[in-house]
């Protein structure tokens, strides 16, 4: 069943041109040039119930704007979005009770109060019964291991602890849809992993539909089978993460190590495109169809091969290449 459907969705922001300098600012008091920027350009996609989809894209690509439109914060300039059968920008309470948005860069808890106060407020706002509140809270607090910090003022928490509390606040009403906008931003590797593990487990257990934006490829690799890549407001890829590699990297990498005196570069150039070279270790890009044949040829040659490995291209590398284009 399709939970999210987006058709020709666009968003145009208007702003005023600001020339540098004081004199330009004075002139701007009388005359300003209005400019427009198309943050999202007629995108189309749909998401099935329970899917965990990664939104990838460089800064300013349109990821957050898309999430803002799906959560009803922004009116689209054109096109339409339907989530759980609702039109988000109508901001119907029945819809708002069924989704949550967590923004890694924005605090949604009451900064000067313990997180527990925000949880209690959310309980009332989302009209969660006492029984469900207790059950959900215990479950989430246990999963995220934050029992000891519930009564500490939010501003005194570490970024990782705060993000865990943000997740609890967002999930207390058991939303069917969860929008996660860079939930691991700024966290250390351990905290990132904790949050990732939690999202994975929560998605598997609750079958919540999740859209995740992140700059960290580890988040995407570990959590998402499907990715949507946005660049300059346009979707340039929508499909399985594995297929992305096949589409944008039609080659594999042969990592070979040599012993004895090693090899000269000219001796290995004929096998493919050299990615890395030193006398004892070489990485060669080889077409997927030919990789086995080439590996066999290298092993049968008189080169002093110590070890040979056929590796998939690193996803980070693929994404970097896509954005460079």
């Amino acid at each position, binding site marked *: 069943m399709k939970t999210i459907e987006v058709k020709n969705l666009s968003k145009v922001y208007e702003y005023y041109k600001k020339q540098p300098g004081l004199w330009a600012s004075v002139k701007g008091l009388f005359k300003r040039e209005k400019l427009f920027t198309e943050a999202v350009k007629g995108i189309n996609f749909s998401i099935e119930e329970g899917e965990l989809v990664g939104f990838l894209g460089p800064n300013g690509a349109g990821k957050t704007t898309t999430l803002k439109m799906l959560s*009803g*914060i*922004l009116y689209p300039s054109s096109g339409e979005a339907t989530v759980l059968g609702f039109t988000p920008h109508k*901001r119907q309470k029945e819809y708002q009770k069924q989704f*949550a*948005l967590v923004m890694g860069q924005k605090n949604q808890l*009451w900064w000067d109060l313990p997180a527990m106060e925000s949880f209690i407020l959310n309980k*009332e*706002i989302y009209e969660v019964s006492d029984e469900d509140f207790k059950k959900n809270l215990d479950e989430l607090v246990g999963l995220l291991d934050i029992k000891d910090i519930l009564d500490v003022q939010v501003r005194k928490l570490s970024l990782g602890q705060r993000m865990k509390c943000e997740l609890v606040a967002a999930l207390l009403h058991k939303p069917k849809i969860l929008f996660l906008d860079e939930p691991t931003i700024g966290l250390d590797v351990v905290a990132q992993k904790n949050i990732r593990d939690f999202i994975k487990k929560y998605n598997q257990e609750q079958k919540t539909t999740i859209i995740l934006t992140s700059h960290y490829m580890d988040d995407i690799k570990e959590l998402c089978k499907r990715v949507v890549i946005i660049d300059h407001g346009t979707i340039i890829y929508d499909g399985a993460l594995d297929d992305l590699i096949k589409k944008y990297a039609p080659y594999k990498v042969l990592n070979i190590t040599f012993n004895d005196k090693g090899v000269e570069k000219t001796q290995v150039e004929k096998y493919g495109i050299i990615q890395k070279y030193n006398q004892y270790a070489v990485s060669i890009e080889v077409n997927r169809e030919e990789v086995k044949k080439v590996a066999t040829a290298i092993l049968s040659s008189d080169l002093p091969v110590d070890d040979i490995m056929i590796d998939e291209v690193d996803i980070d590398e693929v994404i970097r290449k896509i954005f460079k284009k």
Partner: protein
Amino acid sequence: MKKYWTVTKNSWQLQLQYRLNLVLWRLRSITILLVFYFLWLNLIKENSVFAGFSQSQIFTYFLLINLLRPIVFDGQQRRMAQEINDGSFSRYLIMPINHFLYEFSRQLSNKVINLFFAIVEVVIFILVLKPPLTIPSDPQIWLFFFLSLFLATILYYFLSYLFNLTAFWSREAMGPRFLFDWILEFSAGAYFPLSILMRSFFVFLSFLPFFYLIYFPITIYLSKTELIGIQQGIIMQLVFTIIIGFFVRWAYKKSLKKYTGEGI
């Protein structure tokens, strides 16, 4: 309504966290009260009348300003405009709440705390300085006074909310808001009785909604307005509230279409 009550309770906790802020805010009120007391003590002698006010009426006027300010006005009136400008307003747009009530619930906590301290200050002031005061004996006056005070509170909230909506249209809502607050308090009679002003200017002010925020309820209390004047004034309060309420609704819908949620 329980959700809005929880907002008020959380806001109370928040204010009690900032004790210094609260103390300084009250210190400001006490200073204004004392300055006005000694100023008017010299300006208006016993048994004399100034701009239609006797000494006891003028002292009562200033004590009532101290009590009515926290009820009608809001000490954190610029917070909403700030939230719109920095994008944190987005959080209210995704929650199943009515922001108009949510914001009022936050202001309610502010009003109750400040009113509590204002009452304590006024009681101490009366006990220590023993100024001559006017206390109405007619229950009808008390009834009209509280009714006009209630309407003034609602009217101010509508006006304040409407003005905060300008933040959706301009990144520079703080400057105009500061000016608006100053004009509003001046025109409301929150600095001195408006009858001091030139007659034509006074009449002009009586056609503005601000006139009905502080000056009008106090003149009811001081029995300086005839019954017909009270009825007309209350009708004016109702009419302004309905008109401004309509504009708030219209402007809010328009503004949300303009909102970009910058900063997130």
